[in-house]
């Protein structure tokens, strides 16, 4: 009842020749939604048919609208035999269901065939008319917005963060059904694509329902994954963070400073329903006056383009949002800060109480099981947060569990509607409950780890699986954290009223580093010192987290990508034996990965890891471990103690000599790295008062007086295997009583390890890399952007490989891959590879697959040293600038840095900056070569009818401002070939497939009216090949947020009034919740 879907087929172009005789095609189109199908007329003898059809109308439930894709099939009419399919287009109409997103889908879509790839294009128009649905028991959740972005999307404000939502649906995999034996590969692929599309739609709808029940209107950090479990089925699962988002009025740039300093919010704000409080006062404050070097990011606001990733989007109100997150410190090294924190309890404490009270009252009748659920798992998929949300970060918590996938026990359970559209016996495979229970178990474990760290929440949370035959490793990880309850929805976190930890607000630039746990009762041995920044509380000596570097954090020097890589052979085995073998190996792998990370961190003189992601992939005869993170030197934490080498047998002269040489090499490397990453111990900063004044004042004595912490540290990573985890089964990763950073050389393995430590080659001059949203220490992005995906598969020779040999191969593989990026992108120098997301897999015995998606972004070298202090000024100037509509010369450095810089570099006259909107769109256009040259505005209107669509795994595009989110892009494609050689082998096959996937994503975004995809990721890339049969098949799943962005300097009118508008609107919204 509630919706009318209308579609019109306009024209086709570049169709393939289907009739050899005439070299032409008689094409017509079938438009299908649910069970209804319409056809266009046949357009005879043309490769560029103009159907110009009537509007095909489908009257459907909004439930179906959410689940089903619109399916468009282009066929070649044949009078005498069956019509030949040319290809299909699936259009997800979800974006049309939300009033704030796109209103019409209109554009050229590639016609895709799973065997032949893209075959021409079709121009389609789609609209939806929704009627109001007053049904309270409705099953649809139209209007809930989904974002892949793991921060509050720019141009929205989080009125409230409700918490964790998750769902999974299960079905039988069409590929493994009996009917697959008799149908064509094409039919089978299409059935699978279709099914997954349906399942994703259903999943999204169900999650949407949960969000509505919680009172939210959006899901942020939406992460959807497929588990291809083979015979036992197909699982589609998703997690996300439910929020109530308010749209910022149009003109308000995220750039306006909106950081709230928690301390400053007047007490009164806190009391009411969270949504109402304090937006306004809050904003004004945001500059943490105290913080020495204000964090770089915040400073940028006006220029927002680049750095904004972190803060800008969340600007305004965070009143009640429950979910914030903190940054966590790695638990591992314990520097104890804890004790002091509690003391200053002040007013906040009372606020808390008040708040809880109100919360309770409010909840009253409405509270549902979901709320409980949220409380049960206080997890947040966000990785960067509005300022003030994150109070302390405790460290990484992770849990893994090895499971055996069972055969389908009970067909036809129906957790759901059966998939009527699939023409085989629809049988739901597994009870979803089983999978649910598995995840529940893991989440419980994560939660208990967080508790052990004295934390009540987990942020930067994610889940993943690795499947090989019938063994499945489920993994979850996140960062234990304490969040500011002022921003939380009540009931979301378990916060004892006695909890005093929030009471003394710490400066935002270091507060998150302070330990959340009790100094006297530390969960693990750790070494604590007083914070090097505020001197008031304790901090650990090393901090590992899964989140992004908080924008306000004080950082010294630049960050860099740090990877730990590991291979472990295992015997081939079946069933339980295999699972046991794997679970036995896991702790060792985690331990080694952790040691490697720690060593590499020390080698770079850094003291914290952000964006840590540890992936363990299982193959038939080996396990692969890959840990990636961005290392950084947090000013608040003590300097690294270096690495010492010790021989086991003192007295052996030759050995000692050997040790000395190694020690020297290590010391040299450390020195070189310090220079490379500009890591100067704080004391040196005294020379530069502007930048570091506050730091010195606080630090001088300490820096001079305090000895560098002895190289004695311990670390611990919380993790456990499901099997073993009744008691807190954390693995103590510190080496017993030994000093972790004394490396002992007692056998060849150790020597190898050290060598491998030293073989990581630094990126060539002009390149930086990181796996987080942006690179710590680089703030002045210019607009050159080049997103890329790269895949490599290595075949191991049959020779008997040792663990060492494998490690070497694996390490080389990763290193070479990085090197080849540096080479390919050399024309963009100076540039930084951001969000370098590496996934490994063991697709077959003896094959190692590494897939990377990342973005290369140019920056202005001259300004990398830009001081945080300046940024504060810039911020101030931002407003003026907006009013003036163009950058003042004065503010040039600050606000419009990115644009101006680019023009500077390229030699393009400045005027280009001020040019039209169109050109603004261009700015970010990635030109692989010659960064700024590429940005020339002629690009978009240079006679090409194709909209330029930029893609990035980040949540922003430098030099631009996102003015509208058009909806989530979540696409799944299968490509198969039976003529592998003719297509250029596997490389040729995959190359064109990836290019096709990009093309289809771009086409969908353009049809929605967008010009960019942010938070893009390739979640799945499964390649199966059989060169002997000349066959290959590949599945790719990608997702991201379609957006419209405009050049940073283009302001829509209004801007200055936005703050007020925001606070008003938020007030009302808040009341509603």
């Amino acid at each position, binding site marked *: 009842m509630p919706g009318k879907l209308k579609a019109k087929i306009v024209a086709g172009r570049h169709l393939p020749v289907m009739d050899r005789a005439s070299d032409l095609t008689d094409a017509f189109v079938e438009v299908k939604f649910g069970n209804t199908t319409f056809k266009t007329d046949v357009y005879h003898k043309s490769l560029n048919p103009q159907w110009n059809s009537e509007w095909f109308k489908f009257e459907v439930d909004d439930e179906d609208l959410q689940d089903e894709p619109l399916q468009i099939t282009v066929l070649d009419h044949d009078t005498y035999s069956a019509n030949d399919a040319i290809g299909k287009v699936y259009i997800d109409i979800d974006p049309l269901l939300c009033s704030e997103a796109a209103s019409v889908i209109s554009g050229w879509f590639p016609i895709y065939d799973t065997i032949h790839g893209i075959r021409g294009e079709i121009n389609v128009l789609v609209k939806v008319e929704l009627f109001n649905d007053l049904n309270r028991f409705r099953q649809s959740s139209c209007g809930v917005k989904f974002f892949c972005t793991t921060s509050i999307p720019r141009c929205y404000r989080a009125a409230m963060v409700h918490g964790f939502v998750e769902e999974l649906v299960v079905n039988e995999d069409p590929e493994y059904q009996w009917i697959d034996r008799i149908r064509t590969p094409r039919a089978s692929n299409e059935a699978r694509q279709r099914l997954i599309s349906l399942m994703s739609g259903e999943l999204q709808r169900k999650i949407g329902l949960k969000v509505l029940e919680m009172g939210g209107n959006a899901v942020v950090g939406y992460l959807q994954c497929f588990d291809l479990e083979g015979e036992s089925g197909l699982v589609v699962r998703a997690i996300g963070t439910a929020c109530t988002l308010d749209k910022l009025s149009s003109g308000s740039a995220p750039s306006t400073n909106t950081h709230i300093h928690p301390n400053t919010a007047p007490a009164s704000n806190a009391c009411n329903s969270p949504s109402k409080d304090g937006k306004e006062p809050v904003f004004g404050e945001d500059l943490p006056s105290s913080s020495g070097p204000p964090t770089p990011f915040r400073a940028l606001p006006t220029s927002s383009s680049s750095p904004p990733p972190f803060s800008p989007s969340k600007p305004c109100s965070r009143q009640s949002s429950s979910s914030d997150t903190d940054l966590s410190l790695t638990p591992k090294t314990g520097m104890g800060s804890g004790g002091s924190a509690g003391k200053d309890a002040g007013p906040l404490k009372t606020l808390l109480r008040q708040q809880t009270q109100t919360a309770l009252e409010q909840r009253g009748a409405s509270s549902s099981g979901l709320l409980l659920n949220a409380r049960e798992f206080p997890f947040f998929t966000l990785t960067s947060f509005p300022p003030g949300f994150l109070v302390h970060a405790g460290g990484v918590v992770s849990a893994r569990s090895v499971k055996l996938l069972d055969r389908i026990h009970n067909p036809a359970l129906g957790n759901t509607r059966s998939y009527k559209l699939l023409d085989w016996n629809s049988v739901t495979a597994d009870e979803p409950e089983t999978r649910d229970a598995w995840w529940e178990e893991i989440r419980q474990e994560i939660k208990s780890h967080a508790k052990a760290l004295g934390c009540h929440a987990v942020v930067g949370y994610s889940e993943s699986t690795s499947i090989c035959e019938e063994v499945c490793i489920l993994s979850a990880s996140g960062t234990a954290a304490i969040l500011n309850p002022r921003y939380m929805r009540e009931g979301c976190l378990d916060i004892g009223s006695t909890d005093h930890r929030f009471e003394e607000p710490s400066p935002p630039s270091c507060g998150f580093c302070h330990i959340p746990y009790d100094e006297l009762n530390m969960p693990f041995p750790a070494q604590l010192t007083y914070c090097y920044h505020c001197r008031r509380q304790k901090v650990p000596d090393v901090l590992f987290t899964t989140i992004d570097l908080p924008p306000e954090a004080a950082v010294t020097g630049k960050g860099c990508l740090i990877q730990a890589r590991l291979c472990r052979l295992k015997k081939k085995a079946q069933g339980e034996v295999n699972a046991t073998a794997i679970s036995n190996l896991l702790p060792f792998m985690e331990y080694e990965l952790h040691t490697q990370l720690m060593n590499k961190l020390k080698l770079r003189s850094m003291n914290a890891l952000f964006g840590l992601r540890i992936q363990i992939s299982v193959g038939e005869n080996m396990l692969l471990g890959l840990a990636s993170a961005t290392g950084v030197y947090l000013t608040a934490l003590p300097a690294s103690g270096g690495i010492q080498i010790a021989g086991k047998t003192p007295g052996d002269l030759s050995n000692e000599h050997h040790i000395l040489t190694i020690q020297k090499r290590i010391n040299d490397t450390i020195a070189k790295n310090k220079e490379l990453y500009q890591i100067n111990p704080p004391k040196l900063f005294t020379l530069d008062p502007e930048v570091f004044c506050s730091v010195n004042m606080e630090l001088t004595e300490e820096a001079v007086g305090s000895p560098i912490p002895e190289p004695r540290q311990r670390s611990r990573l919380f993790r456990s295997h499901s099997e073993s985890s009744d008691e807190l089964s954390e693995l103590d990763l510190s080496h017993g009583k030994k000093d972790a950073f004394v490396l002992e050389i007692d056998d060849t393995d150790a020597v190898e390890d050290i060598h491998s430590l030293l073989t990581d080659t630094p990126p060539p001059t002009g390149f930086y890399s990181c796996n987080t949203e942006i690179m710590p220490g680089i703030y002045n992005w210019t607009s050159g952007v080049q*997103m890329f995906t*790269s895949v490599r*598969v290595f075949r191991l020779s049959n020779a008997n490989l040792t663990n060492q040999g494998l490690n070497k191969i694996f390490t080389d593989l990763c290193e070479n891959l990085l090197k*080849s990026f540096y*080479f*390919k992108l050399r024309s963009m120098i100076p540039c930084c590879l951001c969000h370098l997301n590496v996934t490994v897999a063991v697709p077959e015995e003896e094959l190692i697959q590494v897939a990377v998606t990342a973005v290369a972004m140019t920056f202005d070298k001259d300004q990398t040293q830009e001081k945080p202090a300046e940024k504060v000024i810039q911020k101030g100037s931002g407003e003026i600038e907006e009013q003036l509509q163009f950058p003042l010369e004065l503010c040039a450095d600050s606000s419009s840095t990115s644009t101006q810089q680019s023009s500077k570099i390229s030699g393009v006259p400045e005027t280009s900056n001020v040019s039209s909107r169109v050109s603004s769109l261009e700015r970010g*256009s990635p030109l692989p*070569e010659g960064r700024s040259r590429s940005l020339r505005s002629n690009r978009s209107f240079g006679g090409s009818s194709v909209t330029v669509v930029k893609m990035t795994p980040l949540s922003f595009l430098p030099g631009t401002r996102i003015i509208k989110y058009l909806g989530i892009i979540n696409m799944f494609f299968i490509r198969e070939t039976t003529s592998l050689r003719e297509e250029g082998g*596997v490389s040729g096959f995959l*190359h064109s497939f990836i290019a096709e996937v990009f093309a289809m994503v771009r086409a969908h975004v353009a049809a929605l009216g967008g010009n960019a995809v942010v938070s893009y990721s390739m979640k799945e890339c499964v390649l199966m090949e059989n060169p002997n049969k000349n066959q290959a098949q590949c599945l790719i799943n990608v997702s991201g947020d379609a957006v419209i962005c405009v050049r940073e300097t283009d302001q829509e009118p209004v801007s200055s009034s936005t703050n007020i508008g925001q606070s008003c609107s938020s007030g009302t919204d808040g009341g509603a919740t």
Partner: protein
Amino acid sequence: MAVELDVFVGNTTIMDEEVYQLWLDGYTVNDAVKVRMEGGVLEECETSADVLLSDTMDQYRTFQMCERLLHSPAKLANQLLFQIPPHRQAILIERYYAFDDAFVREVLGKKLSKGTKKDLDDISAKTTVTLKSCRRQFDNFKRVLKVVEELKGPLVENIRQHFLLSDKLARDYAAIVFFANNRFETGKRKLQYLTFQDFAFCAGQLINNWTVGAVGEPVDHQRSSRVYMDVDLDKEFLQELKELKILITDKDLLDQHKSLVCTALRGKTKAFNEMEANFKNLSRGLVNIAAKLTNTKDVRDFFIDLVEKFIEPCRSDRWTAADMRLYLTHYTNSAHILDTFKHQVVWDRYMGVIKSCIFKMYHD
């Protein structure tokens, strides 16, 4: 242990111009890697041969995938598969359609047929252009010819619009198409000294002056069944050229013409004596060429005739280029003063082209 698969795909297609050129030139991946290494990229970018190989392979694959689109360049602008900035598209197309003068000189005027294609390996050996590159160039010629010969309207403009080429390149293609269509003989020994650019210039002259299109849309377009285009010479004009014979068949006219020319030239050049002595021969040569152009066979021999009947005799008399210019100018203009000569228009149309062609062709 081996890399089984290695791909890199950018959202904006990454193309290295140097590698593109190597690909166009028909280098294999391995040869291209060698060339690049010799170019010193390795040192410059602190990288390894493996990386270079991988990069080269990626680019080669990209080019191969693009090649289909380059065959109809207009598609490149609105295809969706590769996101390529327009100025880069233009470079891709222009380079793809560029050709080696050495190669084109070999096939100029030949029928663009399978037969010729079979000879490409000989041409490749002779010109040291790789066979692969020869094939690309040959196929380009054929493709352009095929599209353009069906079209009405100005040749150069058609080529430019359909293949999005620069003006210069479009003119060169027009010349190639024109030569192929009319099968002008260019391969004879006596013509070997002429470069492609010489011929291209002459082709331009012929296209602009002697084709149907050259005189603009015929007024009697409806009546005429001739297609309005300038790939073919204007048949009516060729017929009219026969009338010029009177210049050599009518003795009075010939003598009168000679005296007029000689009067004008006297004292102005050292070669005057030779000019005077040879006048009748030379005039006969030029007019006979004109008169015979109705035969397709003679059209083919147009250039060889020019060389044999006019350029060679002059060269053996050591005329300078200036002499040539002087002579032809007066030779043409004097005909206007002949009262019994009524074919001024045809004469001008003919001699205008002949003059420019001979000026261009009269060199070592």
